[in-house]
């Protein structure tokens, strides 16, 4: 009934089809497995590198000191680049030479350092040693090891204690430098205008008016970096709120009962500089890379910036007659002040796997010769009492104002963590004409209350 040839062919065809289907299934399974493995491999944490073997003690030699027994790998995170970054890398290399069993991985991140550290805090996965950039107490202390008992703790500069110590006297970072800042000034323009160094806010505004009439930018504002207008608010706040205050404002800020109408004059100062034409026309968009040039080329009289800009000025022109002066105060009876506080500082993650290595590294960085290198690279005074540093052209200015008190940066002590961003945005809005002092103050108040409640 059935043609045997047809039957053989059909059976052959069916077997071939079964074979093909089987092959197809195998290929599909292999491809799927490969895709899944590739995806999972991308998420796999890298194996930690194997620690280098310690230097074995040769027979007949004395027993190695305890530090040589340090073994392990740690991560060192910094936001420093340029000369300061190079110095830190050199020091890490020297530390590893002294401790052959230790490997230190350096992670450098400049613009996104703060965001990155916040993400790491959220994941509770911090670097073993990391730069605290002025926030060791207010922001990072929850994750930092208290360092009050360290051998170098006794030599911490007294000016740092206000901004770095908590109410129990504990501090959480080694600050190799002290951040010292005043109003940067072009002295040749000041002399040309026949003006004295301003002491009060009124003196300051008179100097600005004279500079404007002579065709200079009285205050150069590099508003493209929103830190620039924020510096004015942050650095002038003590003049309006703390300098002649009996402690009422300081207490009110500490307990959250501050009257924010008192902030309006601080913002108004910035508004006045803008409205009176004392700032450069492109105050909202000028870049910070032109700051040093403006001072060196005698185009601007004052700049509210860190003293490190002076180092840049002297790099462009060693003869540049630039310096810094204390911040203007409300009346001649008030005491002048500079801004100071935590400078180039490093803390230790309290949950790190190798606290012994991290503490040894900080002890290494605290050595006088290393502190001196950091100070020279940063152009800032030492954060350790036992280290005297010569900073070149800035020394006469530091010497001139050695009796002037250094108040900590206002936001680091009197405002909750997170307010610096608000200062930046409100300052930027003021100089761009996007907000009035009252509106800017309302934003400050709203965010202050919210962040204060989170503390």
């Amino acid at each position, binding site marked *: 009934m059935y043609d045997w040839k047809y039957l053989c062919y059909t059976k052959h065809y069916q077997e071939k089809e079964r074979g093909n289907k089987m092959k197809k299934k195998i290929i599909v399974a292999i*491809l799927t497995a490969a895709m*899944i493995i590739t995806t999972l491999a991308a998420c796999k944490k890298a194996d930690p590198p194997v620690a280098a073997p310690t230097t074995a003690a040769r027979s007949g030699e004395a027993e190695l000191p305890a530090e040589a027994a340090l073994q392990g790998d740690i991560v060192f995170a910094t936001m420093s680049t340029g000369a300061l970054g190079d110095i830190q890398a050199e020091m890490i290399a020297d530390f590893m030479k002294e401790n052959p069993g230790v490997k230190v991985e350096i992670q450098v991140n400049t613009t996104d350092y703060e965001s990155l550290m916040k993400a790491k805090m*959220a994941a509770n996965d911090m670097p073993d040693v990391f730069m605290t950039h002025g926030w060791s107490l207010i922001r990072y202390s929850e994750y930092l090891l208290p360092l009050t008992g360290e051998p170098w703790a006794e030599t911490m500069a007294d000016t740092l204690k206000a901004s770095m110590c908590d109410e129990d006297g504990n501090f959480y970072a080694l600050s190799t430098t002290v951040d010292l800042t005043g109003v940067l000034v072009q002295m040749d323009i000041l002399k040309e205008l026949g003006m004295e160094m301003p002491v009060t806010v009124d003196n300051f505004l008179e100097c600005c008016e004279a500079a404007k009439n002579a065709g200079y930018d009285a205050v150069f504002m590099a508003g493209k970096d929103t830190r620039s207008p924020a510096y004015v608010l942050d650095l002038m706040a003590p003049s309006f709120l703390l300098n002649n205050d009996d402690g009422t404002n300081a207490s009110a800020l500490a307990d959250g009962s501050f009257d924010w109408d008192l902030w309006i004059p601080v913002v108004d100062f910035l508004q006045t500089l803008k409205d009176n034409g004392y700032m450069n026309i492109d105050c*909202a968009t000028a870049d910070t890379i032109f700051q040093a040039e403006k001072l060196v080329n005698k185009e601007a009289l004052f700049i509210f910036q860190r003293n490190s800009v002076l180092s840049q000025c002297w790099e462009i022109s060693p003869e540049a007659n630039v310096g810094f002066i204390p911040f203007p105060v409300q009346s001649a009876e008030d005491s002048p002040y500079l801004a100071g506080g935590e400078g180039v500082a490093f803390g230790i993650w309290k949950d790190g796997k190798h606290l012994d290595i991290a503490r040894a590294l900080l002890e290494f960085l605290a050595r006088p010769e290393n502190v001196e290198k950091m100070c020279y690279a940063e152009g800032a005074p030492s954060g350790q009492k036992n280290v005297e540093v010569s900073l070149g052209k800035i020394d006469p200015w530091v010497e001139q104002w050695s009796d002037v008190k250094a108040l900590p940066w206002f936001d680091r002590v009197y405002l909750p963590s997170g307010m610096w961003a608000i200062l930046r945005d409100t300052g930027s*809005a003021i100089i761009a004409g996007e907000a009035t002092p009252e509106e800017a103050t309302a934003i400050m108040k709203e965010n202050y209350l919210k962040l204060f409640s989170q503390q």
Partner: protein
Amino acid sequence: MFTRRRTQKATENRVLWTMTSPAIILMIVFVLMPLVIGLNISFTNWNGYSQSYYYIGIENYRRLVTDPMFQKAIINTVVYGMGSTLLQTILGVSYALLLNQPFALKNTMQTVVYLPAMLSSILVGYVWCFMVEYSHGAINDIALLFGVSKVDWMGNGNRAVLMITIANTLTFCGKAMLIYLAGLKGIPQSYYEAAGIDGASGFQCFRFITLPNLLPAITTSTILNLIGGLKLFGVIQSMSGGGPGYASHSLSTLINTIYFSYQDAGYASAIGIFTFLFIMSISIVLQSYLNRKAESNE
């Protein structure tokens, strides 16, 4: 036979699921899970880095209604989305019509127009920064040559939004051009020949032949451009950082600023959920409208 067909279908379905399972897993891990976690965080007061937080109900969503920064960001987002899409459509169609003609260096021009789309948006933003700078920017330097005084392009909120929209348009109009070029290639020449015989002018051919036949391409390009414009981040971050003040923030850059700088992850997540719903709604509405238009033209 029926059983054999069912078995075959079951086998095909198994193969289909097996092949798509990695994509589904990736979608769940990198899209759905973050969405659910973000939704959870939006009901808290988490600052983004502490180990503890509290649930505060719909407080973050209530804040959306009164926050001037959020209101400004929505307006800017709509401008970036709609403005960029409109300009990219006009430019894209224009370039496509031009490049559909044979002429020398046609391929070179096509490459040049498309090139910016291949660059990172952050890089594009930084290049534009140097062009719009007040003191040493290219645009002001050229304007000075013609005796026009300098303008601080990014110093004012509205001007900053305009410059960012222009930068985004010129960067991605190349992608629109490619989509429209492909659409133009699909229009039969016989339509134009027939219209020519009937005495139709160039504009009439464009209006009654080119545009209706390009509707599917317009739908695709408009949706893609709109989503890209509404999600704009890199160009804004590098050109203005959302400033001056908060004048040029989009919803994306605002989320970034509020999460990392303002340390308010809860509120940032609430804005993120709103952004997701906002973009999805607009995309669905626009796609339905354009698809209906395309179907009615067929």
